[in-house]
């Protein structure tokens, strides 16, 4: 579904990604793991069109993402759940969710999608009139994911969903990711919490200092020496 070929990207004279090639097939859950500063957020920004790559090809279902403007990415079926949730704190849960369906194509299905999200996440329905900024971290993450779903996407990009959350909450969040997968969404997750994410992902790529060092399916990576030493303290 999503393909990146030899993508190079960065900011100004600083290069953050070197010759990145990866793919996400329909129905898969793929993880990109790596330490801080490895370039994970840059990767997300490139796919979302917020940062233009220096070179390389990005395609979504065959369509090139190269010249697509950021706000048009949603129309191609990609929804981005940003790092740290980035909800609109002064607006209600329902307003936040509704804004997820802002794109013209999605607006028609807004009510349908809203009901779907409420069914998926009943807690959001309970809190629909609550100000998003007053919710707990886990609930905010739920809302952020719900907001992304509102645009009726095919691919969900999740940028460090566990960031800033307590371990118990992190487990809940990944439980949500599992549920979404069961509903048929394709997911690309960028994460630092290797153990948790490899439990829900089918495959993973290891990104270090802007380069893809290893890749493979989750069970293999969990067993890999590099991963175990560097990220699991073993």
């Amino acid at each position, binding site marked *: 579904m999503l393909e990146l070929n030899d993508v190079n990207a960065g900011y100004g004279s600083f290069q953050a990604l070197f010759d990145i090639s990866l793919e996400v097939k329909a129905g898969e859950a793929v993880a990109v793991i790596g330490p801080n500063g490895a370039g994970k957020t840059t990767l997300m920004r490139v796919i979302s069109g917020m940062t233009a790559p220096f070179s390389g090809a990005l395609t979504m279902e065959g369509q090139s993402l190269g010249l697509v403007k950021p*706000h048009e990415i949603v129309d191609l079926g990609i929804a981005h759940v940003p790092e740290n949730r980035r909800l609109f704190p002064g607006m209600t849960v329902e*307003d936040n969710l509704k*804004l997820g369906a802002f794109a013209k194509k999605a607006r028609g299905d807004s009510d349908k999608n809203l009901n779907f999200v409420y069914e998926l996440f009943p807690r959001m329905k309970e809190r629909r009139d609550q100000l998003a900024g007053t919710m707990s971290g886990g609930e905010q993450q739920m809302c952020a994911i719900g907001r992304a779903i509102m*645009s009726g996407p095919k691919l969900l990009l999740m940028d460090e969903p566990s960031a800033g959350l307590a371990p118990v909450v992190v487990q809940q969040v990944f439980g949500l990711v599992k549920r979404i997968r069961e509903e048929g969404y394709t997911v690309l997750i960028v994460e630092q919490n290797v153990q948790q994410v490899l439990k829900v992902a089918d495959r993973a790529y290891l990104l270090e200092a802007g380069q893809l060092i290893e890749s493979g399916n989750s069970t293999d990576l969990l067993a890999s020496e590099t991963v175990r030493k560097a990220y699991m303290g073993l």
Partner: protein
Amino acid sequence: MDEIFDIFLLEAIVNGILFGGVLALLSLGLNLIFGVVDVVWICYAELVMFGMYTMYWLAGVYDVPILLAAIAAIGLVSIMGLLVHVLIIAPILGSPPINQLLATGGLLFFLQSVATLMWSIEFRNLGLKLPILEFSEMYFSYARLLAFGVALVGMAAVYLFLTRTYIGAAIRAISQDREVMVLMGVDEKKVYWVTAAIGGGLAGLAACLLVLQYDVHPFVGISFGPITFIICVLGGLGNMLGGFLAAFILSIIISIGGLYSETEWGYVLAFVFFIIVMFIRPQGLLGKK
């Protein structure tokens, strides 16, 4: 003797509130633009000035029915607002904010001068003689009451727009987090345009209300421009409710000050009040730190 004093005071307070209505409308426009685009249009009052001239020429000279002239004025200033954004602000959105402030300052000079070129510095008046109403020994001008009422309606309309429409929600959202909007498929450029047009429209509405009460001349903006900025900052720059409250607080102070001394002292008092509040609460009454 005490009774009469109280009546004058009450009258001054009410007049202050009425005057505050239009100021609140102006500060709403300015706050909207600042909240969304993060720029203060120093020339906002000059846009109002052009709206006032439009009303003068259409309704005062060419006898166009007032309501029609008002719609034309609002439309014209709305377009001006859009042009200000597209031609002047958009090209320098990435520059340091002070550049943007100064660019609108240049526009202030430009607008004042163009008005002088076109219409000279003569004071013009719409020439409407609206009645003065008496209410238990207090006198209120009908024009001011009308202006207050319409201003409230205008603000209510904007409130409904912001809370009930998709674009309105997008406008509120962008002022809380600019970058994320893009991820939801919102073209931030279009949101800026809508905001600039609405800001201009509000200025146009204020112009219609002000021209009923005051003369228009190229420098009329100086009378209420600075006080509008001060109101916005006092309420918390970008905070529409704060601006609303601050407008009335300051206009009451101005009115009461003018009661006990010359009009200028009322303004001085208001400005000094502003400076003091800035020191106690630098983010404004309702501003976030």
